[in-house]
């Protein structure tokens, strides 16, 4: 009888139970991939819209100089806002579907205490950031929307990573970094959005899927 092996497996069970009970382990890598794809489609739609309005993404800041283009730009912002909301909803729903599926496999309740903690911890920084950005928009400051979204989202993810698979924190760091870089390239937000919300999510999702769900 291999007592040592038995004791080791007992300790491993204990560790696993501590992990399972305190972290939401059903977050699926496929959710990251699908959210990223939604973001890329959203960014592409946004770019097309900007083109039909006859303004180059890179020149948005300069075009704010005269009032006619200013009105034009405001109506464009309305359209972009709609696209952003739709993209966000699509990303959220698709992410939920894959994570719901995963929770069936890992046999962890989708609405248990770990899931609630995860959601609260991602929501607080993101909602605070959202209100902050709305206040900026109210004051006519548009340039910080994209970097602001990336930074606050990154902070939310970083905060929530304590309550889910630990590698998620690298997603948080990446989003914050890209948001900070974007601060120095105001007017190119769409490209940074595509990188941050699109490509980074996809890379993260593939990595997580590869690590946890391949089999």
């Amino acid at each position, binding site marked *: 009888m291999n007592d040592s092996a038995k004791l080791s497996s007992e300790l491993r069970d204990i560790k696993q*139970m501590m992990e399972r*009970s*305190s972290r939401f382990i059903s977050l699926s890598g496929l959710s990251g991939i699908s959210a990223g794809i939604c973001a890329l489609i959203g960014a592409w739609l946004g770019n097309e819209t900007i083109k039909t309005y006859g303004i180059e993404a890179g020149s948005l800041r300069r075009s704010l100089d005269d009032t006619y283009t200013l009105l034009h730009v405001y109506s464009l912002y309305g359209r972009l806002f709609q696209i952003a909301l739709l993209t966000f909803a699509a990303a959220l729903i698709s992410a939920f579907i894959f994570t719901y599926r995963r929770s069936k496999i890992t*046999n962890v*309740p989708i609405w*248990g*205490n770990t899931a609630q903690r995860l959601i609260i911890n991602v929501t607080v920084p993101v909602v605070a950031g959202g209100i902050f950005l709305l206040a900026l928009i109210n004051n006519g400051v548009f340039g910080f929307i994209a970097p602001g979204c990336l930074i606050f989202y990154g902070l939310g993810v970083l905060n929530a990573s304590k309550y889910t698979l630990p590698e998620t924190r690298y997603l948080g760091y990446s989003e914050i970094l890209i948001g900070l870089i974007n601060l120095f390239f105001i007017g190119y937000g769409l490209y940074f959005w595509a990188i941050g919300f699109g490509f980074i999510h996809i890379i993260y999702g593939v990595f997580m899927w590869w690590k946890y769900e391949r089999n």
Partner: protein
Amino acid sequence: MKNPIENLNKTFDSRIRLGIMSALMVNASINFNDLKQLINVTDGNLASHMKALEESGYIKVQKGFIGRKTNTLYSATKAGEKAFRTHLDALEQMIKNMG
């Protein structure tokens, strides 16, 4: 040297109880249903083990309501945390001694 096996706690001599204590060590409190799903046991089975742990003074029970449904919260007591740590240390010590 003292044999670490003496430090093993008989109360934790079951996978289910080990599971319950592990979960309660890292959470301020957990309700009955979450615990049941985590450990994957039947109501009756979980309840009897919870009773034993409660009688040893290792966990405390807080009955409450969410709307009309009962919501029973469990948490580890100070004594329970200490006893579980001692038990874990003994387990580790035994593994080390076996080499």
